[in-house]
């Protein structure tokens, strides 16, 4: 039986090579006793985590991260219908791009989280007021905000202020280039956490919600 570490490594390489057929074959060939959520937890999620770390270290490119995430999202959608794949006790979550039109980071995070069994609302591009209105209306507990431009990143401060003003306890997790280049910025804008890559978010959500997910 293939060592699980070796299996994850092979799966990672298949993703980085964008070999969809091999990716699907590897998932199909797993022991039949593996429940869908186990296939996600033991194979898909660890491989994406390794890819995310690889990008952090400059060994993997963003285009590989994006395409890998997309392939895994497609896999989860076709092989793991949401009712079967869903993690138990998830916080109610949403993801959004604030103010600018650069969607790539959000798409990557969305794909990776979906592949990891999370459900979340995708708000697309929103401005500050609209974001605050929607998270309150939808009963969101954790909002993930992606930005590419520094002014958009600084607008998170306004989001936080408006949520505080409404007595909301919604947790804000931020990510994107400005936060990567200034490790203090997420605190300056009042966010609750920052994710350097998509694979970190699961653990962050777990921490912010007191181990809820």
């Amino acid at each position, binding site marked *: 039986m293939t060592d699980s570490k070796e299996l994850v490594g092979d799966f990672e390489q298949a993703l980085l090579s*964008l070999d969809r057929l091999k990716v699907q074959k590897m998932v199909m060939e797993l022991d039949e006793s593996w429940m869908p959520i186990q296939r996600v937890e033991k194979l898909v999620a660890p491989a994406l985590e390794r890819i995310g770390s690889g990008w952090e270290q*400059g060994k993997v*490119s*963003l*285009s*590989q991260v*994006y*395409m890998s995430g*997309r392939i895994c999202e497609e896999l989860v959608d076709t092989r793991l219908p949401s009712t079967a794949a869903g993690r138990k006790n998830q916080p109610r979550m949403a993801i959004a791009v604030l*103010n*600018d*039109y*650069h*969607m*790539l980071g959000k*798409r990557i995070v969305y794909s990776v989280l979906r592949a990891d069994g999370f459900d979340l609302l995708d708000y697309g591009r929103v401005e500050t007021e609209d974001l605050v209105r929607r998270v309150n209306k939808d009963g969101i507990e954790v909002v993930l905000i992606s930005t590419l*431009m*520094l*002014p958009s990143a*600084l607008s998170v401060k306004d989001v936080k202020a408006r949520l505080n003003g409404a007595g909301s306890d919604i947790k804000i997790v931020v990510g994107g*280039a*400005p936060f990567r*280049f*200034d490790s*203090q*910025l997420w605190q*300056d804008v009042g966010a609750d956490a920052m994710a350097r890559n998509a694979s970190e978010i699961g653990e962050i959500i777990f921490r912010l919600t007191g181990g809820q997910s």
Partner: protein
Amino acid sequence: MKQPEITSMQRVLTTLEHKEPDRVPLLLLVTVHGAKELGVSIKEYFSRAENVVEGQLRMRAKYRHDCIYGFFYAPIEVEAWGGEVIYPDDGPPNSGRPFIGRAEAITGLEPPKVRETGCLVRVLSAIEMLKSKVGDEAPIIGVAMSPFSLPVMQMGFDKYIELMYEQPDLFNRLMKINEEFCVEWANAQLEAGATAICYFDPVSSTTITTREMYMETGFPIAKRTLARIKGPTATHMASGRCLPIVGDIAQTGTAIIGTSVLEDLAEMKSACTGNLTVLGNLNGIEMRRWTTAEAEFAVKDAIAKAGPGGGFILSDNHGEIPWQVPDDVLLSISEAVRKWGKYPLDWVQDHKK
């Protein structure tokens, strides 16, 4: 007898020859700060060539750095194609909704004609006026987005990556169109008086694209495009990493490489010595909260790592200073270059890196 100070142009040219001029050149790539100088909104600032001319001249006098930046804003190139530009109050104009909605639209796409496009003519007019004021005293830098990186604004980053990997015919057609536009745009700026063109190519960086994919795409595109640009070029990765491909970039015909703060400047200089001049790599995002001491340290550290032997120009790592960076930080940077950047850099050996 005191030697007359050399001009900024002479300083930069000597550096490009990998020789040591009087001091390390400083290119402060300021754009929106010009609106602050004139006391107008960012949108109003860029609406008239005369505003940008006045802003650039005032900023050069104030910060005493070594270039004039003829760059307006990145999405001016999608504006030329009919795309949307958003003008925030506190940052550079940003591209709006991508104008290529479906990849199939690429089949019928044609590039705009530079000299018939109002927003581009405004840039050319600014460069002409700047040349008449500055002459050959300082380099005037024009900017052109690479054909390989422009699609991020034309169609959105995610759709573009999918195009690159999954629809090669449409990708190649888009590159062909973009190459024609880039060459016409770059050459028009050189004819207007720009000294050199900064070829922005972040998608070629290894942050975004694997080396394998770059060698099939961004690299041959850069070779073809830069060969047709009738003047010297700098290649800028806009904060993206490029150390793994710096040997390849040297073969594209470019003279300068804009370097990310994510990479070690000493390693970059070592990899470039004799082939490319290193431009960079101060962190523009962090700069907004630097103290005078922190600014001085960052400058001193960069000069220690890359200054010896010439072939180094101090600048920021992204190719544009953020609006939020205060004047006193930029003035501190300028002072620090004068304090620590005088050749020969005798103090470098004792500097604790």
